[in-house]
């Protein structure tokens, strides 16, 4: 008995361990947690009571937070008012729930007519492959979306018809919101010390020295969580490479290499910033949130991250903050990391495709831009001139930054999309680089190995 009881108890413990792994087969994968996409309970809006003989448009979206949800509700009401006889049945889910349920729902004959579909190979790519999304190319020109959504942005919601290659082929969605990575600066500190916003990357580098000489941490940064180190590197990388290169890298086209002089130079410059002591002391042991807390409390003159941080930064602090794009080499306008939010797509086979397309137009209308801007949420579309945006506010800065790169077709990419393992590889290799374990040349070579493996498998 004693033998069996022990073996049994060990089996019990082990089976729990294995059971934990087993969930992998039932729960779909989750992307690394992105800021501003925390889970909250979902809710479904009640369908309106007054049902007429009219058309009902079923819309699934993931704007579940109250302020965001209000924007959608307002837009929907105005859409109904502008289209007599049309009723919108809105279903709200958080992104994770949406991703899980919509694959099945979109294959149903009475599924949603319009749904938000996450970009990426495993979501939009899989749906395109299963022929569940309507190509929107005709509407794109017919309804004038091409004037609202510029080329580089439209391609973000594109896939080849086989669902295998991102960034080309048909357009399957339009995004109402956007984000851009740039430099937040502490206006209070800048004014007190007479520092000016740099006009070129060279000025930026000499500003770092000036700030450090004044006894202030130039760039508030913490690489313990890893992912934001990708942004610090890639922000510099974006200034050195061409839009074609970044597109090819992320879309897996053109067989480009990561092991290039530009990427080595970007790694070298990042290392100079780190070795120059321009990052927070002991940054390797500090997490993203902790680093931002310090920055918000007035420690550190600048921090490099995305526009999503803006709303968090302005609350509960006596410091004033601004935002500018990392200036280009020699003052030349460079690319900035950025992208568009989760796009709206139309179900293949819906009998209400035209109405659905009109709804999409509505979602990227000037009115939509205005409503998003009013809650300090960056719209992908240009904001109408009469929108109330506080002059000199942080949101005004981020908006201006997005407008600049978007109009100039200089919106880059989150490079960790390039391969399924790119995120983990980049994080580990950047930590090694910054920790002095590897050189810039070894860094690009190690990352290239991951990329080459992926390209080889794609063949």
């Amino acid at each position, binding site marked *: 008995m*004693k033998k069996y009881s*022990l073996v049994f108890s060990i089996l019990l413990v082990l089976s729990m361990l*294995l059971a934990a792994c*087993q969930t992998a087969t039932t729960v779909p*994968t989750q992307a690394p947690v992105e800021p501003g996409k925390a889970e909250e309970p979902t809710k479904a809006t009640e369908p309106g009571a007054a049902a007429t003989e009219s058309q009902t448009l079923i819309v699934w979206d993931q704007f579940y937070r109250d302020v965001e949800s209000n924007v959608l509700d307002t837009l929907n009401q105005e859409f109904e008012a502008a289209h007599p006889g049309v009723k919108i049945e809105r279903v709200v889910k958080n992104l994770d729930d949406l991703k899980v349920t919509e694959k099945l729902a979109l294959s149903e004959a009475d599924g949603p007519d319009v749904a938000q579909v996450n970009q990426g190979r495993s979501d939009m790519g*899989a749906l395109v492959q299963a022929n569940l999304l309507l190509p929107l190319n005709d509407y794109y020109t017919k309804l004038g979306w091409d004037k609202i959504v510029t080329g580089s942005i439209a391609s973000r919601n594109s896939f080849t018809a086989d669902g295998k290659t991102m960034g080309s082929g048909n357009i399957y969605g339009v995004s109402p919101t956007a984000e851009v990575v740039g430099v937040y600066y502490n206006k209070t500190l800048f004014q007190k010390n007479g520092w000016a916003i740099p006009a070129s990357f060279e000025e930026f580098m000499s500003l770092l020295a000036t700030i450090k000489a004044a006894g202030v941490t130039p760039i508030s940064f913490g690489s*313990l969580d890893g992912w934001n180190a990708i942004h610090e590197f890639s922000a510099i990388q974006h200034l050195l490479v061409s839009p074609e290169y970044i597109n090819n890298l992320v879309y897996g086209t053109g067989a480009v290499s990561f092991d290039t002089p530009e990427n080595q130079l970007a790694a070298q410059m990042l290392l100079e910033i780190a070795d120059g002591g321009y990052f*927070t002391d002991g940054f390797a*042991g500090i997490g993203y949130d902790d680093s931002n807390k310090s920055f918000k409390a007035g420690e550190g003159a600048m921090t490099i991250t995305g526009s999503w941080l803006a709303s968090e930064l302005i609350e509960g602090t006596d410091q004033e903050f601004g935002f500018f794009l990392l200036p280009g080499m020699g003052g030349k306008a460079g690319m900035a990391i950025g992208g568009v939010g989760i796009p709206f797509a139309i179900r293949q086979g819906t009998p209400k495709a035209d109405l659905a397309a009109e709804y999409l137009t509505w979602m990227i209308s000037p009115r939509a831009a205005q409503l998003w801007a009013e809650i300090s949420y960056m719209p992908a579309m240009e904001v109408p001139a009469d929108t109330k945006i506080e002059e000199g506010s942080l949101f005004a800065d981020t908006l201006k930054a997005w407008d600049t790169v978007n109009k100039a077709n200089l919106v880059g990419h989150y490079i960790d999309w390039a391969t399924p393992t790119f995120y983990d590889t980049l994080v580990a290799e950047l930590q*090694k680089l910054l920790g002095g374990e590897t050189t810039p040349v070894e860094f690009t070579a190690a990352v290239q190995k991951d990329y080459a493996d992926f390209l080889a498998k794609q063949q």
Partner: protein
Amino acid sequence: MNRLRAYPGESKYQGLVYLLPGLAIYLVFTFWPVLQTVRTSFLNWEGLAPEKNFIGLANYLQVFTDDKFWLALSHNLIFIIFYCLIPIFIGLLLASLLGRYPLKGFTFFRTILFLPQVLSMVVIGVAWRWIFNPTFGPLNLLLRAIGLGSLARPWLGDFALALPAVGSVGTWVQYGFCMVLFLAGMQRISEEYYEAADLDGANAWQELLFITIPGLRAEIGVALITTIIAALRVFDLVFVTTRGGPGEATLVTGFLVYRSAFLQNRTGYAAAIATILTLIILALSLLVRRYQAGDAWSKT
């Protein structure tokens, strides 16, 4: 083991019926998923796609040729020092201090020392992340306050120190458990042995070595098994503190399983690692069982 016995008028199998609900839950929620995991380890499956191809041992071959797996496993083995050996040593020391000599506030100390064991691993991880924080963490503040500022480090971000730092958190969690286990075991050791040893002139150290430790063989065995399992399957602490970084300095097998299965869609590969890990744990546990053989396990 007693043979099945029945009260008059009852079937001797009646008792087994009462086991059924528990057994059913165990089979459905634990045993079946385990079998599924083992099955998955033979498949080429991306977790979402409907296609699953049987590829035999290919996943296992890939695991064995993956440098990252061996690196992660070596970190797990180092964790055995921090999760198992050091806590058992501290636990023995504390138990012999608290258990042998009457001490004022004994219950208080026992509770305080056991406390880390009842906290959630995630809470512990978050708390220690703050303690290790280079700028406002108490550890570095303390070092600077006592003039040892030169020793202050970005603990969790330092390539040489991250693994011992995370490991020492494991020590902090485990030693209380070992101590309580040993304290309970010591109550079973007859006082006469110690008296006899005292008469023979044995000192405290000799008593620990020749009476307490042999007397605690069963408890040490239990402590070894549970802490070794904890060291090999560690995931939560690494996930919360370092996510395997910096670089791969704290990468452990549990995190590799999570990363492969949930972030990289390599479900079959992850299942293979999990299965191998399970076999390793099983083997080590049986080894410890050997050490225990013929001892007091059956008496407990």
